[in-house]
C-alpha cells in the first residue's frame, strides 16, 4: 500500500495540532495553556496515527541496522561540536581556538564519514 486517505488525515491532524500548539504558546495565559494542551495532544496523536498506518505498507528495501551504533555516531558528531565550544573558553589565543575548532570538526567528520555510514551499511540490503 502506498499513499492513502489515512496518511492524508493524519498529516492534516499534524498541521492542525501544530497550529493550535503554536497558538497556545502565542496567546499565553489560561486560554493559551488550554490550546497548548489540545495542540500537543493532536500533534502526538497524529504521530501515533502515522505509526499505526505505517504497518499497512509493504516491506522496504532496508534491513534494521544496529540502533546503538547509530546513536553512538550521532554522539560522536555532537562531541566534535562540544570540543570546538570548549576550546573557545580553553584558550584566548586565536591560534589555539583555530586548532581546537579544527579538532572538533575532525571528530564530527569522523562520526559522519566513518561511524554513521558504518552503522547504516552494516546490514545494508545491497550486501546480501
Amino acid at each position, binding site marked *: *500500500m*502506498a*499513499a492513502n486517505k489515512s*496518511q492524508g488525515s*493524519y*498529516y492534516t491532524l*499534524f*498541521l492542525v495540532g*501544530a*497550529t493550535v500548539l*503554536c*497558538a497556545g*504558546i*502565542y496567546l499565553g495565559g489560561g486560554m493559551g495553556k488550554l490550546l497548548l494542551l489540545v495542540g500537543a495532544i493532536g500533534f502526538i496523536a497524529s*504521530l*501515533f496515527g*502515522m*505509526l499505526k498506518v*505505517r504497518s499497512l*505498507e*509493504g*516491506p*522496504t*528495501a*532496508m534491513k534494521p541496522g544496529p540502533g546503538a551504533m*547509530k546513536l553512538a555516531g*550521532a554522539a560522536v*558528531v*555532537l*562531541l*566534535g*561540536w*562540544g570540543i*570546538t*565550544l570548549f576550546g*573557545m*573558553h580553553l584558550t584566548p589565543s*586565536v*591560534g589555539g*581556538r*583555530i586548532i581546537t*575548532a*579544527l579538532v*572538533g*570538526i575532525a571528530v*564530527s*567528520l569522523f562520526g*559522519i*564519514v566513518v561511524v*554513521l*555510514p558504518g552503522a*547504516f*551499511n552494516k546490514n*545494508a*540490503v*545491497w*550486501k*546480501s
Partner: protein
Amino acid sequence: MKKIRSWCLGLCILFFGLAGGVALYAQGAAPAAAKAPSTADAELAAAAAKAPATADLAKGDPGGTITGTISDVPAADSKVGVTLPDTANQVGQNKIAINFVWTLVTGFLVMFMQAGFAMVESGLCRVKNANHTYMMNFFVYTAGLFSYWLVGFAIQMGGAAGNGNLGGLQSLTPEHTFTLFGKTWGMFGGSGMFLSGHQYDVGVMVIFLFQMVFMDTALTIVTGACAERWKFLTFAVSSSIMGAITYPLYANWAWGGGWLSQLGTNNQLGKGYCDFAGSGVVHAVGGLTALAVCLIVGPRIGKFNRDGSSNPIIGHDISAVLIGCFILAFGWFGFNPGSTLGASAAGNLRIGTIAVDTMLAGCTGTLGAMLFMWIKNGKVDASMSGNGLLAGLVAITAPSGFVSTVGACIIGLIAGVLVVLSCSFVENVMKVDDPVGAISVHGTNGLWGVLSVGLFADGTSNYGGSWNGVTGSVTGLFYGDASQLAAQLVGISTLIGFVFTLSFLINLGLEFFVGQRVSVETEIAGLDLPEMGQLGYPEFVFKPEPSVLLNAEKSYAVA
C-alpha cells in the same frame, strides 16, 4: 503765552504717543519677522513656483524631464507648502522605499529558484518518479511557508530589531539569551509568531518574505538527495519540522542576533561569524540535512552492487536539468545582492560587486567541474557541469559581500573541482546514494563557502561601518585577520556538529513513527502512480531500464 504752552504740551504728548505706538508696533512685528520663510523654505517655495503646471504635464513628458518634481513631495501643511522637514522626511522614506522594493524584488527572484530546483531534481531522476519529484518541490514551498509563519520566523528573526536598512524593525524584540562565563549569548527570537500583534508592521513583512524564500531554498535541497524512494508523507512532515525548527534556529544564531554573530563582540573573533547570503545558513543546513536523511532512507534499489561498487542511474531529462541550472543562476542574483537588504545607503551600492562576484564564481565553478570531468573521463558531463555552476554559486554565497572578483573566481574554481570529488566520495566511500549530488553541491560547498570568508574577505566592504556590532570591515586570513577564520571554523563546527545531529535525530524519530522509505513494490513501480496517483508523462512509451537495475529489482521482488 499760556495758550501756546498748552499747544506745545499737546503736540509733545501726541509725538510721544505716536513714538510709543510705533515702538509697540515694532515690538509686535519683531516675532513676525522671525517667522519669515528661511532661505531653504524660500528656495523650496521658488522651486514649487517653477514646477510644471498641470497643463504642462498634460502635454506629455517624452524626455522624462518634468515628471517627478517638488510637486510630488507631500506637504504636511498645504497652506505653507513644501518645507525643509517635509523634504527630509521624503528623503528618509525614499531610502526605505528603495530598500523595501529591492529586498522584495530580490526575494521574488529567490522564490522563482524553486522552479529551477524542481527542474534540476526531476530531470536527474528517472521518468517513473518525475511527478513525485516535481510534487515534492512544489509542496515544500507550502509546507515550509506555513510552518515558518507559525513559529519559524519568530525563532529566527524574533529578536532581530535594529536593521536600519528596513526602517529599524524595532518590533522584533526580544532575543532570548543565556549567560555563560559572564557573557550574554542570543539563542532564539521572542516575537513574530503568526506575524501578529506588534509584528503587524510593514518592515517586518518585507523581511519575512525575504527570509522565508531563503528558508524554502534550504528545504528543497533535501528533496533532491532523497528522491526516488522518500515517502511523501514523511517528506511533508520532515519539511514542516525543518521549516519550523532546524533552519530557523541556525539562521537565528547567524543572522538573527544569535550567539554565532556575537563571536566578535563577546570573543573578539573577527566580526563574528559572517555568512553574507547563506552558504552556511541555507546551503550547508540543507546539504547536511540531506545527508542525514539519505543515511536513514538508504540507497535506491540497484544503486550498489554486492561488492559495493555503484551503478549509474541516469536521469530522464538533461534539458530540464540545464534549464533549471540557468533558472537557479538567475535567481542567485536575488540571493546574493538581495542580502544587502537594501540598495540605498550603508554601503549598499556594493550590490554591483556582489552581482559580478556571483556571476564569476558560477562561471569558474562550471569551468572547474567541466574541465575536470573532460580531462578525467574524456567527455564533458552535462549534469556535472550544471552541478559545477551551482557549486560555484553556493560557495560564493557567503563571501559574495566581502571578496574581490579575483577571490570570487578562485572560490568558484575550487568549488567546481570540489563538487566532483565530493560526489565521488559520498557515493563510493560513504555508500550514500544522492541522485542529484545535493549533498556535495550544497553541503560540501556550503561549508567551503563559509570557510572562504575567513580566507578571502579583503576588508574593502563597509556596510555602515561595522558588521555584527564590530567596527570595521570583514577581513580574512589572506588579508591579515586570522581571528575571522576562527569565527568561521566555529560556524562550520556548529553546522556539522549541531545542525547535522539535530536533523539526524529528528528524522530518526520520523523513521520510527512514519517510516522514511516507500515499500519495495512502490519503488520498483516508480513513485508516480503509488504515491501521486498519476504518471508524470502518461502518454509516453518508456524503454526498459538497464539490465543491472532490472535484475536488482527482480531480486527484491522475489525476496
